[in-house]
């Protein structure tokens, strides 16, 4: 069976994660070998996922950590450890 482009698009995410059934995986792979449009969709999606997973996309605000730990300190230096269950 030959897959049409729009059926291949349904499998892009699964293909990238390697979660497709092996038969579907093979059909998609075959299609990609000769279809430039689907290859470009796959490549661009993969590229975008690499970029969005990069730590540099989101920067912590300056002083974030200091303010967080200062606030925690107030809580932690308060009386007891967090309430204990079943002891």
């Amino acid at each position: 069976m030959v897959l049409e482009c729009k059926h291949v698009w349904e499998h892009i995410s699964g293909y990238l994660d390697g979660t497709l059934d092996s038969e579907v995986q093979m059909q998609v792979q075959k299609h990609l070998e000769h279809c430039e449009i689907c290859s470009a969709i796959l490549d661009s999606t993969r590229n975008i996922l690499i970029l969005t997973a990069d730590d540099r996309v989101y920067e912590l605000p300056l002083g974030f950590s200091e303010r967080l730990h200062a606030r925690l300190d107030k809580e932690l230096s308060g009386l007891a450890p967090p309430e204990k269950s079943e002891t």
Partner: protein
Amino acid sequence: MAEATELRNELQMITSILGGETHLFHELIRPYERSVYVMALSFLHNEADAEDTAQEAFLKAYRNLSSFRGDSKFGTWLISITLNEARSRIRRKNAVKIESLDEPTGEDGHVSPALLRDWREIPSESLERQEVRHLLQEAIGSLPPIYRETFLLRDVEELSIAEAAQVLKITAVSVKVRLHRARMMLQKSLAPQLKQMNSKRRWFPWS
């Protein structure tokens, strides 16, 4: 097996914190500061609210530490708390501004990708440019909430499909479906913009 050791250390730390060595909580959460903040930021869209939400989430985690059962990773548990905190903030905000937390189109909604004839790789170094970082943040931030959540957990926080399903209280199949849609939506909105930037100017003088 660094990960297994890490998990054991976390469990030990938690036991000690509950036993009274509360200062260890600082150390326990240090690896998760970014994750919690990013999760909050993608929902609240402004740094001050996101920071406040992140702080609240850490405080909640501390106060509820004794209810952590160790049947999930501490990080996953913490992300669940953050997600709930972010969601409830948005609900409170939405008393003024409406942004539905529900699914916009239904589970069978279909997303077509942007069609390109070719793709020239965008190098990770391009993230040094604020313009590019903003573009990505905007695109992620404007995904409908259920897709944004799934995408963040899986592709930004790098949870497994099973862990994401646990946090979102949905099936693994739903995670895969939502993830696929989220990724296609991002491809659709980002690929043309990134491509245009890429052709307008080169990332490196030598590329």
